[in-house]
């Protein structure tokens, strides 16, 4: 009994902290989302998100639904690109020698630890019309390209910033993979591609799913990349929330955060279901 009391005493500070600073603040998001400036109950903030319209390039559009759709679209494209680039890289890393693995790990981690604002800004100077990329193309006698201020530039920024978050979880699973399984598959007549499809990919699936989550969530909610690389023309839901916060419209900012949270919770539930179904991995104890 005394020990149980000790467990409670040790947990008490964290329990109180988590309740006060994790759970209660989420309640405040909902509270602000459904109230007006005088804290009277209202649906206006939520319905504004779904009904507000504006004119873009001569056509009338649903302002915030368009922004949200764009966020989802660009985040999905970036996630798929990160997977296409990150998966082979993780595989190559896991198969390399000890020394090469260590060096590549350091190379992957350096960008993660450097401030992403400066790195994103550096991309701006690369992609500008008079920037380094076009200077390079010009020197080669090639035609200049226009990238900055397009959706492609935003996707480049997202892939650049979040690629390490895709590589690391996949790599850590692949590095632990039993090489004998691959050899066995080969001995049993698999060619390179079917070893990949039937053995390597299924085994690496937990890493893929956690990598996808780690790229998708920050890229849906980012608010700096699009302002700089999209020249402010491709507002994402993160930019919209930040803009309302900066303008001190806390209730509408909260409403958008609330909607984003609900959509992401649904996504996470689907991802979790997929993880359980395809890897047989239950909840952690």
């Amino acid at each position, binding site marked *: 009994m005394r020990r149980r009391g000790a467990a409670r005493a040790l947990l008490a500070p*964290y*329990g109180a902290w988590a309740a006060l600073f994790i759970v209660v603040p*989420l309640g405040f998001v909902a509270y602000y989302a459904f109230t007006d400036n005088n804290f009277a109950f209202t649906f206006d903030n939520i319905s504004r998100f779904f009904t507000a319209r504006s004119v873009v390039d001569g056509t009338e559009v649903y302002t915030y639904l368009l922004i949200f759709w764009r966020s989802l679209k660009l985040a999905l494209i970036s996630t798929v690109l990160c997977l296409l680039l990150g998966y082979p890289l993780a595989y190559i890393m896991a198969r390399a020698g000890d020394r090469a693995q260590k060096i590549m790990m350091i190379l992957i981690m*350096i960008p993660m630890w450097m401030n992403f604002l400066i790195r994103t*800004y550096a991309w701006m*100077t690369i992609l500008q019309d008079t920037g380094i990329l076009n200077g390079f193309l010009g020197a080669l006698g090639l035609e200049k390209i226009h990238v900055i201020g397009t959706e492609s530039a935003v996707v480049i920024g997202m892939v650049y910033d979040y690629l390490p978050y895709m590589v690391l979880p996949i790599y850590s699973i692949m590095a632990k993979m039993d090489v004998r399984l691959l050899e066995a598959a080969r001995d049993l007549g698999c060619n390179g591609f079917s070893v990949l499809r039937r053995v390597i990919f299924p085994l690496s699936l937990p890493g893929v799913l956690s990598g996808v989550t780690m790229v998708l969530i920050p890229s849906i909610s980012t608010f700096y990349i699009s302002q700089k690389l999209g020249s402010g023309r491709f507002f994402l839901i993160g930019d919209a*929330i930040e803009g309302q916060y900066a303008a001190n419209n806390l209730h509408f900012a909260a409403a958008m955060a609330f909607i984003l949270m609900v959509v992401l919770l649904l996504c996470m539930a689907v991802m979790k279901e997929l993880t359980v179904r395809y890897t047989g991995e239950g909840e952690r104890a």
Partner: protein
Amino acid sequence: MKTLSRVFTGLIFLFLFAPIAILLVFSFNETKSLSVFAGFSLKWYRELLHDQNTLDSVRNTLMLAVSAMLISTVMGTAASVGIHRLRSRALRRLLNTVTDIPMTNPDIITGISLMLMFVFAGWLFGLANSLSFWTMLIAHVTFCLPYVILQVLPKLNQMDPALPEAAMDLGCTPLRAFFKATLPEIFPGVLTGAIMAFTMSLDDFVISYFTAGAGFQTLPIRIYNMTKKTVTPKMYALATIIFFVILTLLLVSNLTDREAAEQRKKKTIKRKGTNP
């Protein structure tokens, strides 16, 4: 196949390091341009050393990161021991779910939610501006805690539960048993958790942005404010310094890792030699 994978790896690392190379080069530019290199000069580094606001923000960032690391490591380790001893499955599951929230929620939602609560509390107490160093510290401790718990809890589960019990049987008080038997066993996890908390706090921009008071600027917020206006190579000079600090830390930690691994190897060989 081998050449193909070499080329692919090379291209990816070119992509990852292109902007870093750019900012290394242009931090030494003689002119203000960030895309035309005019000549070598150290003048932006000199300017950086005279930029009191930036130096203050570096000091603030370190102060905040050290405080957040200490608080979250102590509280997180205690919480892990508590969770580990907890008998009630339902309560344990509830705590795990709550601990997962700051890690799975996007930063912008964590930031907004804390900001709303602080603003509301400020309004309740009639304060004009409730955001300060303290609100930021609370926010940083909150998002660091899960990382500490995630590192410490598995170490506790791996530990032989007989160890602290034996210590207590031999006359240790529970507190002494924790420091003498449990802590040395779980220390690698505590250390990794503390390092993670420190780096997360150091690098955080989004949550800080929403919970920062007007008078307290961290380095990421300072950088954000600088990139709103036209940027000079001064910022690149700052990034270059950060780059070399990180590079040194990573190399040192990897080298010491290797040394430790070799020593461990020697020890096991020795043990095997005397105890076949």
